[in-house]
């Protein structure tokens, strides 16, 4: 099993390197000159050339790439062209905010999606099933920004129950942190809850038809236990894998939600950086996101192996 894990990790390394090449090349291909952006009003060719030389932009591209890669491997993703802050520091500041949002959204999605999926599989073809499917479909089809704006209008503006924007770290004031984050997490989680519900439902429907479920019933196992233990344990494998993968998408989806609720997270960082042509930040954020995505894939693979006795002994 360790062998299998190790192999997966080794496969991830070239993928990450490939992505780093893409990210670097993309930055070079983007329109706009960072030196001009940095220089501001300065248009003196001599000064511009000096900045260029100082940033090492006259070196051949491979040299620039390896310099950047060497830095990145040591945790140095360069400095923000706009604020002069190290990119790594910016990311370390903003990432926990987005992670909190993502984890809360995921929890909401799991708590809604999995039970709803199980119930609608067990009650297949009944009113309950249709209702759950309708809700799931709406959850997946309603755009986040619309739901977010509606919730702000209703909950924050009209009922004045929750704050419409802002961020409080949970370490500072846990209750207030939850109050500010619950609405964006709900908005972000609904789409995922719908997807999870649909996947849980189809996975459960497949498993409930299996011979071993009939065996469990023949043993006299109570129906509740047949569903929750014998069937769900087997339906879980694809669900867990999917959840790990969806979590990556969730973080990507956070960009929009953070904009709506003006949460100072990762998404807001990258949007602001794109608008101000702060390429070092864009590059760093994209790289970290990509690595995160690959890590989630790795986690998904490993969970799949752990949950599957057939692979565990391999």
């Amino acid at each position, binding site marked *: 099993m360790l062998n299998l894990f190790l192999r997966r990790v080794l496969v991830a390394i070239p993928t990450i390197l490939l992505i780093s090449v893409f990210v670097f090349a993309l930055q070079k291909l983007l329109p706009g000159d960072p030196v001009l952006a940095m220089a501001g009003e300065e248009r003196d060719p001599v000064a511009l050339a000096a900045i260029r030389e100082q940033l090492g932009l006259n070196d051949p591209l491979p040299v620039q790439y390896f310099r950047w890669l060497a830095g990145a491997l040591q945790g140095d993703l360069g400095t923000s062209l706009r604020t002069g802050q190290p990119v790594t520091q910016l990311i370390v500041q903003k990432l926990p905010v987005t992670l909190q949002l993502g984890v809360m959204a995921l929890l909401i999605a799991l708590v809604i999606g999995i039970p709803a999926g199980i119930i609608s599989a067990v009650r297949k073809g009944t009113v309950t099933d249709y209702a759950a499917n309708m809700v799931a479909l709406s959850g997946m089809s309603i755009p986040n920004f619309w739901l977010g704006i509606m919730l702000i209008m209703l909950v924050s503006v009209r009922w004045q129950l929750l704050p419409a924007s802002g961020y409080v770290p949970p370490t500072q004031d846990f209750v207030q942190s939850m109050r500010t984050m619950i609405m964006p997490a709900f908005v972000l989680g609904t789409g995922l809850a719908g997807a999870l519900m649909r996947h849980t439902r189809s996975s459960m429907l497949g498993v409930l038809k299996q011979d071993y479920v009939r065996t469990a019933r023949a043993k*006299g196992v109570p129906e509740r236990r047949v569903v929750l233990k014998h069937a769900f344990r087997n339906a879980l494998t694809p669900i867990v894998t999917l959840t790990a993968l969806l979590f990556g998408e969730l973080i990507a989806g956070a960009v929009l939600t953070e904009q709506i609720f003006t949460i100072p997270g990762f998404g807001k960082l990258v949007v602001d950086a794109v608008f101000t042509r702060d390429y070092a930040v864009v590059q760093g954020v994209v790289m970290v996101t990509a690595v995160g995505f690959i890590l989630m894939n790795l986690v998904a693979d490993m969970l799949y192996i752990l949950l599957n006795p057939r692979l565990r002994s391999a």
Partner: protein
Amino acid sequence: MLLRVEDLQVAFGATQVISGVDLAVAAGETLAIVGESGSGKSVTSLAVMGLLGAKGVRIAGRAEFDGQPLDLTRPGGTAKLRGDQIAMIFQEPMTSLNPAFRIGDQIAEAVLCHRSVSEVEAKGRALDIMRKVGISAPERRMRQYPHELSGGMRQRVMIAMALVNEPQLLIADEPTTALDVTIQAQILDLISRLQRDRGMAVVFITHDLGVVAQVAHRVAVMYAGRIAETGSVAQVFDDPQHPYTIGLLGSIPSLTGPRTRLTTVPGSVPSPAEMPQGCRFSTRCPFAQPKCAQQPLLREIAAGHRAACHFAPLELNFGAAA
């Protein structure tokens, strides 16, 4: 009689698949239910187990187990007996065990569902029964997962699981069909031995007449959801009275005597949707007459030997033709 089922009717939606089936098994007896695919033999056994729980299934009929009335019409009716007094093993050992749990836990669970014993005690009983059904190195097997076992070994595990609570009745639905011939013989021997040791009743569902002759005391031949003929193994094999039974027996190759072309029953079982009126075998029967448009009753021909044919006994009605 340990189990008595009378006038069992099963319908999937508008389609009647089992019509008026009577069954009776005494303690210590093996009843074989024989028939082609689609004859309704598995559906009958699943109905007795209360495992036809799907939507749109309607079950009617009277049943009695060990002197107590048994409600087959709803899935909960047999819940208490299932896995305790009535146990079942299935055709497909490869897919009948849960791949996510260890063998020992799956057997012990059957104990824990019906007896108020500790987990340690349940595991102990699991180990005991594994030894009795001939699973080698049971301590090690207990901790293994189903995929680590061969098909024959898995069927032994299924048998262990079924027998761990010492049931009075075992329903075996084609338990050897998916196994190699040598393993088949071992499993049949095992079931017979355990039955003798425990005085257990067995309902053995099969399409294999060789198996019937080997294990059963009595046999019920099913055709298209009805019983065509029933009697002791000797009566049905030596003196078959229903044309369908005769056809089935004719399709067994014989090692002695002159080599002849194997006879087959022409055609196939009619689908429940286009069931012929009257005798359901009439569309394939070489003796069919206009009278066969009426449903024949299951009539007694000799003590315990009954056949559902207007012309039984055939020797009397057709002379040399039979």
